[in-house]
């Protein structure tokens, strides 16, 4: 059973009646995702092309057995939406919203983490298990079904690498976009851990970028705990220190969080790091072809 989203997914979409929310919900459903409900306070009782809308997540859980939530509400309400989903007993929460205050996420992370809730994002493209379920905004047509796990802090860069892999005839077990914010739920280490235990994944491609130390922690985790081979790509060698590069979390603070430091940490654990998305895909192809 592929990780994060799969055939067991019963999705409720928070903010389903918004323009973006309804667009991606329908795309996800069209792909085959089991979308069981939507939530928009005050619009309970309506439906979005046949998907029932409720006023609260609790009701969606009670009536439709939702077990996964996708959050598509504006940033100043998104933290509350995540907490609502957690309170309603949702086990997997995928937050697409960008621009949630970092302090909100600090509190939310501290609350949900010890409760065993899987929180993906915020500011992430979601997760796609090709052929089974797509929760989020990842363009599924780019990715083929296969046995490479892909985990990334960036959306479009992931698509680029997925495309390059597909060009080499390789597909993916699950694509997980962990998000570009300073505080996100699932970290690289968390997703690597899931891939390591996933029989559907034979190789992992990890796509990092400047800022924070999650890639360094991932390197340590790979060295200590992983048997599944990992290939990496890191973006941001040209980024100047002290500037936020598009993602709230993509910033070199002082001398910490540089692409070079991340590359060195990964290589020290035997992880090959591509110099471009093209090269990363080629390294993956080589590793995939090599005897495990």
């Amino acid at each position, binding site marked *: 059973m592929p990780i994060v989203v799969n055939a067991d997914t019963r999705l409720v979409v928070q903010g389903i009646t918004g323009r973006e929310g309804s667009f991606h919900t329908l795309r996800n459903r069209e792909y085959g995702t089991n979308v069981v409900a939507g939530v928009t306070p005050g619009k309970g009782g309506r439906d979005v092309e046949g998907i029932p809308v409720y006023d609260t997540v609790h009701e969606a859980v009670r009536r439709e057995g939702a077990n996964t939530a996708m959050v598509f509400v504006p940033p100043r309400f998104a933290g509350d939406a995540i907490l609502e989903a957690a309170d309603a007993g949702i086990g997997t929460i995928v937050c697409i919203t960008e621009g949630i205050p*970092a*302090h909100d996420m600090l509190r939310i992370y501290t609350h949900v983490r010890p409760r065993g809730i899987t929180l993906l994002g915020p500011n992430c493209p979601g997760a796609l298990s090709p052929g089974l379920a797509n929760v989020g905004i*990842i*363009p599924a047509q780019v990715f083929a079904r296969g046995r490479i796990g892909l985990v990334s802090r960036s959306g479009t860069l992931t698509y680029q690498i997925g*495309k390059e892999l597909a060009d080499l005839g390789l597909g993916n077990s699950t694509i997980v976009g962990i998000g570009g914010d300073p*505080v996100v739920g699932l970290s690289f280490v968390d997703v690597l851990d899931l891939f390591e235990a996933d029989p559907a994944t034979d190789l992992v491609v990890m796509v990092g970028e400047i800022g924070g130390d999650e890639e360094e922690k991932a390197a340590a985790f790979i060295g200590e705990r992983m048997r599944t081979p990992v290939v990496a790509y890191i973006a941001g060698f040209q980024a100047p220190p002290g500037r936020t*590069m598009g993602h709230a979390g993509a910033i070199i603070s002082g001398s910490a969080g540089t*692409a070079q430091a991340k590359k060195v940490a990964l290589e020290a654990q035997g992880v090959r790091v591509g110099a471009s998305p093209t090269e990363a895909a080629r390294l993956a192809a080589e590793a995939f072809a090599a005897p495990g």
Partner: protein
Amino acid sequence: MDLYEYQGKQLFARYGIPVSEGSIAATPAEAREAAERIAAPVVIKAQVLVGGRGKAGGVKLAADPDEAEQHAEAILGMDIRGHTVHRVWVERSSDIAREYYFSITFDRGAKRPLLMLTTAGGVEIEEVAEKTPDRLARLHVDPLVGFEPFHARRLCFDAGLPAEEMRQAADIMAAAYRAFVETDAMLVEINPLIVTPEGKLHALDSKYTVDDNALFRHPDIAEMRDLEALPPEERMARERGVTYVKLDGYVGIIGNGAGLVMSTLDVVAGAGGRPANFLDVGGGAQADEIVTAMEVLLSDPDVRAVLFNVFGGITRCDEVARGILTALERLDVKVPMVVRLDGTNDVEGRQLLADAAPPNVHVEETMLGAAERVVELAGSGA
């Protein structure tokens, strides 16, 4: 968003952290008036969003209003590591017995606020951490439980603060924590936190960063933003809501998604070029936004060629192509452009460009190929 020293001190005062009496001055005459009001020796301090102003001569002691005016004259307009001084902070001079350091940072690795206190203040904390790590007290606070008295005690005892200063230090730390949380700060730093000869603790400088994503709930702090401090292209970008960072190269770069744009910079550098900027049009960009982004990018006179690298997910490549064509009509584009479109509606996008066939637009199929091409064009277009 980084705040100036005087802005950070305004927030300090609001939360009850002791600061010196002072005024902001944009002219030497205002600095004189400020010194007259204070009626005591003052310090004239350049207000810039960069460190090292002391070494650059941006901080001066003035014994009287005359001297204050002279120093302000010298400091105003000064260039400190690329930042022009537009204002000085004039504050009552303090007697200093000892200098400490205290900060609260948003530790994203630990996902908790990190508090640091050391009696070896007045220097960069990295230096303390390296040279005298045992004098640096550090701890994390659980964001749901908050700052408790035991945190203060632990920091004070671990840093070896004299017993008689602990009450004051604890109050300052609690106030700073409240400020950190209530203003959505990413950094609150007091360096130096001084002790006067009378034994009073007091913030002599401030470093204060507020989360941009939280400014909607702090309109007063949002208003503190000083657009003058930005380079003109970045000011324009900010006004138009475009994510833009100016760099020192000559290849203009536009793309969709922060990661892809960062990667594009690296691939261009790998091909031997120097990126002029980072510009992310974001997801689902419409033609109008493409035009705006182009305008920002082309306002930089250093740009010799432009690389457009788009991977369509939510973003539709035909929409991007339309934006490019509109921009070419509206703007006087003199530099060559390389365009690479992939993903959603890429065929349609490329077709639109092929049909219009603008003379200085070069379409490439791959990211690597596009990077090589734009470097070549930038080199020959100088």
